[in-house]
């Protein structure tokens, strides 16, 4: 009887989403185990072992896991899953890819993007682009779920905590899939999912160049991550991994600044839990104003540089 968390990391450190998953895992009041799989993961396993509330770390280290495939990670989770009551990950591209596969292998249902854990088998999760919250109960003995990271606080690190680290082998790896390569979008900005401030732009920015010229100085001044609407991404103004919304990343920073964004539900689904929301739009009836704390009815090309300036 324990909770197993699939850790997510970048090869060097844990993603903040994993700390948040550890907080979510405390709801069952069972020992929390963390699976760290990858290549040269010793430091990451140690980092996981120091998180408050972690009882055990399962470390899997192999060269083939340098670029982990869903097929292999799912098999590891099934093997490590044995007597676990809950298998849990953050609802990130990584977690979304792996956990449904795990659930099907174990013949149980899965709950995606859980925002509240009500009871041991009862959850609240958004449906219809977050316009409705459903309370759902599972009948399965084993619970498999992804949690919305921004709905849970990050567990703290306690240097005194040193959970035991046990090693697990990779038995077989998939013959169905080969990893060919990746394109990493380099950015000097903080990671979108965990940034304290997010500055997002819409299609109205007009070009990739203007997107940068107008928004980057403001983001820099606020040490903010950049975000974008789907319309801005589709137009090629911004990279795909900074899309905020129903089908992109869900964020809940301290401050979210929406620049030239209309406020479609598919976009607000990804940002309306932000603590403070500011919107700049020249349309006095823009829907984004309905989810904003403060708004300016103004031209973005004048207002954003003025705001950057006013921040000193």
């Amino acid at each position, binding site marked *: 009887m324990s909770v197993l968390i699939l850790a997510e990391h970048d090869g060097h450190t844990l993603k903040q989403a994993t700390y948040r998953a550890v907080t979510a895992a405390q709801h069952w009041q069972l020992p929390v185990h963390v699976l760290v799989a990858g290549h040269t993961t010793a430091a990451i396993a140690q980092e996981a072992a120091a998180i408050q509330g972690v009882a055990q770390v399962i470390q899997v280290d192999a060269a083939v896991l340098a670029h982990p495939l*869903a097929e292999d990670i799912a098999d590891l989770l099934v093997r490590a899953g044995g007597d676990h009551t809950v298998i849990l990950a953050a609802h990130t591209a990584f977690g979304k890819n792996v956990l449904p596969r795990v659930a099907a292998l174990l013949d149980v249902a*899965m709950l995606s993007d859980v925002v509240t854990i009500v009871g041991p088998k009862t959850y609240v999760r958004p449906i219809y682009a977050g316009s*409705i919250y459903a309370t759902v109960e599972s009948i399965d003995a084993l619970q498999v779920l992804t949690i919305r990271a921004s709905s849970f606080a990050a567990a703290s690190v306690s240097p005194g905590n040193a959970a035991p680290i046990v090693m697990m082998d990779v038995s077989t790896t998939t013959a169905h899939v080969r990893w060919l390569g990746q394109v990493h979008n380099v950015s000097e900005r903080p990671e979108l999912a965990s940034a304290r401030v997010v500055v997002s732009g819409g299609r109205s920015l007009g070009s990739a160049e203007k997107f940068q010229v107008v928004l980057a100085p403001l983001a820099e001044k606020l040490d903010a991550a950049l975000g974008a609407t789907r319309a801005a991404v589709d137009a090629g103004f911004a990279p795909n991994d900074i899309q905020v919304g129903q089908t992109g990343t869900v964020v809940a920073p301290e401050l979210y600044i929406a620049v030239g964004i209309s406020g479609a539900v598919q976009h607000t689904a990804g940002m309306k839990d932000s603590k403070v929301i500011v919107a700049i739009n020249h349309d006095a009836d823009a829907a984004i104003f309905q989810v904003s704390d403060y708004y300016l009815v103004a031209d973005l090309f004048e207002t954003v540089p003025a705001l950057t300036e006013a921040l000193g």
Partner: protein
Amino acid sequence: MKILVAVKRVVDYNVKVRLKPDGSDVDIAGAKMGINPFDENAIEEALRLKERGHVSEVVAVTLGMAACQDVLRHALAMGADRAILVETDVLLQPLGIARLLKAVVEREQPDLIILGKQAIDDDAGQTGQMLAALLGVGQGTFISAVDVHEGEVHVTREVDGGTETLALRLPAVVTADLRLNEPRYVKLPNLMMAKKKPIQTYQAVDFGIDASPHLKQLTVANPPTRKPGIKLDSVQELVEKLRTEKKVIG
């Protein structure tokens, strides 16, 4: 090569979905229905692969009540060659759907199965991965590009931080992201023609598969709402509010 595309009938994305007064479920009676947007990308990609000469047949499949035929007609009108309806009035959830789709895959023996990456009603995003697991094949999720090679497909996946490219040995399951393509418009004559194409119907019970729901919806509610926003007149006022009232900037 043969492609199977799974499509779902959902409430149109422009509809603001309401709750039933007793909060037991959403009220979608009479709401405009249509094909799940991501599934439209899935069909479009199958058709493009066919137009490029890689594919001999594109088969669309859906599961549910007889009314779900309309999304199959849509797929046929876009250019799918055949369509299959697996009829059931059981409340379908991703695991049940994956199990039924597995039975269809075993009958049809497609080389590639394309699904949308998520449905915009339950927003679960599970069915493709579950189907791949049950079939014991490789998966390529959230794809924005696909290329056919000897015995395999190469897919570009949209992941946190950028993109990733994988080679999947066929048969394989892939799930479409919106940026995979721009789906073609369905022209009226094609819709008329699609009415004449046959839809093969199976009864889910005949598959002898347990597709019953594992998740019970207890209640639905509106999410917490935000207070109406305050209109400000200048950036100075905004900076002041953020600094002294909300204390979110230094």
